């Protein structure tokens, strides 16, 4: 039960986050994925900072948490998968 308590979760010292990069962003940051430990209550933008060592986040970067589109201020939670990629060009 304690694992689902939001107050408790914000008190844990770190969250384990899977980070993924695709296409030109993958080449730019030089990795396709990694698992990192983030402090509590981090946002997607903070995950980008942590994962890239502070590289600038381009305005047209798309972001997803658990495969749903979000914006940079979206909070991440322990176990989330966070992805960064450029505008899509399928079809």
């Amino acid at each position, binding site marked *: 039960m304690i694992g689902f308590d939001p107050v408790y979760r914000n008190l844990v010292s770190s969250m384990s986050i899977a980070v993924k990069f695709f296409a*030109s962003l993958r080449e730019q940051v030089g990795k396709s994925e990694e698992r990192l430990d983030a402090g509590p209550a981090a946002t997607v933008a903070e995950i980008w900072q942590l994962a890239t060592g502070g590289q600038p986040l381009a305005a047209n970067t798309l972001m997803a948490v658990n495969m749903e589109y979000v914006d940079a201020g979206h909070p991440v939670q322990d176990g989330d998968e966070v992805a960064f990629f450029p505008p899509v060009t*399928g079809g």
Partner: protein
Amino acid sequence: MHIEIRQQPFDPFDEVRDYQRNTLNEAGKYGATALFIGTMRDFNEGDDVRAMTLEHYPGMTEKHLEKICGEAQKRWDIIDSLIIHRVGDMYPDDPIVVVAVWSAHRAAAFEASRYLMEELKSRAPFWKKEQLSEGSRWVEHNS
């Protein structure tokens, strides 16, 4: 409703016919089938293109294609829809994507097939990298 990511070349005509015959199983009910086939061109933005690599986000791509099909199903009176999208290395004249929609009457099939393609192009996580005669480049504009 069926969506699929393909690593290997496919024939869109065979795929749609096979799906219609073997899976759709609604003979006599659909009066309208609208198909769209996206095929790799040998030119883009004024340059010759020799080859292309299509990258996707396994899991998220499928999820969003399913979502798009589900939205079309809610919005139009359609019987079924199919999307097959290629990934990996491909060459000019290779089919990239096929979208098919079946409905009783034509308006729904026409409108839903267009909707699926527009939504796919704006929301589904795919990225194209083109091989030109001099080097390669990521496609930035999805025209």
